């Protein structure tokens, strides 16, 4: 069983997503609605990581190698302006896709394990991950053209 390792990887990714969203808000404070929502979504990811802790404790460690090292970190470039924004959103998009996919996988796994609590968490928190993904995609669509063609 590799459930615990998988849970820990999702936890790590949620943490990374939270940090990336905070960085996005800090580096692009000139777009206050972007910054405010980014911070809000960062809090969601922090809460997700925390909520996973209960389940991490529920499953024993497996025999697998330390996969954390094999999952490369994704960090925003941290430069301002609209081109920087496009780049940073692109990184956050990758992270949120990863997180979203992992919640979907975990939902299947929890079903197979008949772990009702984990299943409920996947339903609820996975839905929030989808909202995060939709937001990142939308902000990318808003920023992309000006950022890539016109920004200095």
């Amino acid at each position, binding site marked *: 069983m590799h459930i615990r390792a998988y849970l820990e990887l999702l936890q790590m990714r949620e943490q990374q997503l939270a940090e990336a969203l905070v960085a996005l808000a800090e580096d692009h404070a000139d*777009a*206050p609605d972007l910054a405010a*929502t980014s911070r809000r979504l960062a809090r969601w990811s922090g809460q997700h990581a925390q909520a996973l802790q209960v389940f991490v404790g529920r499953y024993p460690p497996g025999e697998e190698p330390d996969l954390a090292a094999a999952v490369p970190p994704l960090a925003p470039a941290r430069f301002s302006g609209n081109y920087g924004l496009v780049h940073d959103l692109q990184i956050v998009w990758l992270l949120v896709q990863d997180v979203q996919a992992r919640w979907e996988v975990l939902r299947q796994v929890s079903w197979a394990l008949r772990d009702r609590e984990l299943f409920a968490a996947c339903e609820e928190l996975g839905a929030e991950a989808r*909202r995060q993904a939709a*937001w990142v995609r939308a902000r990318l669509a*808003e920023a992309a*053209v000006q950022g890539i063609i*016109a920004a200095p």
Partner: protein
Amino acid sequence: MFGTQITESYESRDSIAHIWGYRTPYAGQGQWPVRVDERALADADHWVQSACVFCSNGCGLDIGVRDGRMVAVRGRARDWGNRGRLGPKGLHGWEANMSPDRLTRPLVRRGASLREATWEEAMSLLVGRMQEVCSTASSLAVAFYVGGQLFLEDYYTLAVIALAGVGTPHLDASVRLSTAAGAAALMESFGSEGQPGCYDDIDVTDALLHVGHNVAEQHTVLWARILDRRHGPKPPRLVVIDPRTTPAAREADVHLAPRPGTNVAVLNGLLHLVIRAGRVDHAFIDAHTVGFARLKGVVEGWPPERVEAVSGVPVGALRAAAEVLGATPSLVSTVLLGVYQSPQATAAAVQVNNLHLIRGLIGRPGCGVLQMSGQPAGANAHETGCAGALPGFRNWANPVHVNQLAQLWKVDPLRIAAWGPPTPVVDMLRYIEEGSLRMLWVIGSNPAVSLPDLTRVRAVLDQPGLLLVVQDAFMTETARYADIVLPAALWGEKTGTFTSADRTVHISYTAVSPPGEARPDLDILLEFAQRMNFRNRDGEPLIGWRDPEGAFEAWKACSAGRPCDYSGLSYARLSGGPGIRWPCNEQFPDGRPRLYTDGVFYTAASDCESYGHDLLTAAPVTAAEYCLADPRGRALLKAADYTPPPEQPDSEYPLWLTTGRVVYHWLTRTKTARSRELSAAAPDAFVQVSDEDAARYRIADGQWLEVRSRRGRAVARARVGQIEPGLVFMPFHYGNGDPKHGPRAANELTLNDWDPVSKEPWLKCAAVRIRRAQEPAGIRRLLWLAGLRRALGGGHILHSLALQIARLFAKGGGRAHPGVPGAAADAGAAAR
């Protein structure tokens, strides 16, 4: 007063002292009695049909003309929006047209100053620079920002120029600052903009709900209608939600005064009580809506006790309001800036729609939601595609809608700038700051006073490398930053149509010529298009019309088949009689009083203007997601939980600031400050504080106060009372241009932040602190000189001399920057 020969200045009523006039009580549709209000400076030799441009009520009026000059206005008795009535601004504000400081010649910047130029010079320069910017930096470096007071013909022409001519998505209107959230709420709930109800519903309704709508001061004639119902048989109950004790709040049966930023909590509390009491129309909900279970789940968490804790609205008052709203068999709700300029603006406005939907109070007489527009032609900015959607309430995310426009305009669909959502003005400012937007053309708007956080706005307008074009009738605060100023005609000096908040279309004819070389906005836009040589795919001019009626006919073709269908209207049909509502087409040849009479909404995926948004994150719903759960004509009940505003009072800034209007002024006072009576009735800004806070800070009525926020400061006299403790209020009309004053614009203080769904700035709540202040130095000098004059017993000449000296002192020896406090003549967005 028809046919009366007037030999001197005449006023049928004193609208300054008696804002709403005498009562004419009534009940029943079509029963509102006629009362013709009139004001004349001389006998008119003829009258010209028009409508009032001092709010979105759409009061029909005639302009009296004598010897080529405007001399009078008179309400049109045949018009159902006013039945002859006019408010104080309508009766007085037109005098601004004759103001001696009108712009009469184009101006072009040479070095630090603006110099007069010919139209040929100005237009050559404009077109040359536009072509240069587009070729060196792309059309993404060009933006248009337009006021809410042009005519439909101007807006539609501008939309075609921007979207398919220049090819930029950077097109926005000042309605973004006023009613963007209302438009967004209509799209979220009903799939498209378009007021479900109309003013006739007020004639027969059993109850009225005003949410954040200072109706008595904003829509004075609408309020007169409501007062007349309240004084007639079977008066409607009245519920008002407003943090201040406005005239409407004083009249209300139930007044709820929530803390700023808590509208969603209060409205969720009302929905909670209505649902708990079982006062919902389950048959309507089942047949005509989706989303009730989730809405019920969210508002379940808002019992009255929690609402009180968050909003300060007492449990008993909330219950009393819910009793009225839950029991009434019919209801008209109006919503305006108190909701739209607050945090969670769209989410809150949607909850008012939800109230009507769950009670089935929509689409029949006496039942309507009016997500009000504020400006006279604000609705047209939305309809024609100048304010966030594509022309004809088309959905930019729907390729079929984009193709319709491409066919109509005979252009390749890829030529239309519809790859993403149109750019709101708040983002345009960011693009200017970073240098990716290099040319901004402002038409009939004064962002240097009306946008939030003016310190930043001034820096943006003054940014090196930005070419600013301002088209206006007056030298506004914004125009002082311009590189090219184009003098524009005002209302009464040009022909066109505009549409009131209840979808009624009026025609306004040219009564007099514009002064000097000033030209109608449409003429300027048409000449620009011609000089830019915009062509369609057949090589014909992209803009095929040459006059207002041609533009109207082109718009009819664009609107045909859409919710805002004008195809059955014409200049001939609009002339002579009252205004006519859209949709007006073969099915509804006389216009349609109310939409959704069959419970079918514009939510089908193929029809809708927008696929909607996540109300919390503002992420748009994608086409694929929307089509998967296509509501196919059912209204959407969208729930929203309350989220606290990011800036709240703290120990450093312990008070809430909210902003709003006074009855005698309109927007940034461009016109109303030029009426002697209106200006005298409300000469200056003020800071309204509660009795409790006045005692705490030892403030007397009339005491000068400094209000400070994290963004800036403003100074004005105190006005004590009629407001909740912890809250201060400033009117938003007053700019910083008056040399007697220090900064007094409310927007020196407001937050640079906005509702993520509608992108409407939060002008209604900011954390501030107050302290007693000395009167501004300019005023002190004026008073001293006035005392000197009295002591010397001097007459008019000495007084004038004293004023001139005072102004010189106040200017502090000239200005380093245009528009900086203590420099410009006070002015604002020109009401067209």
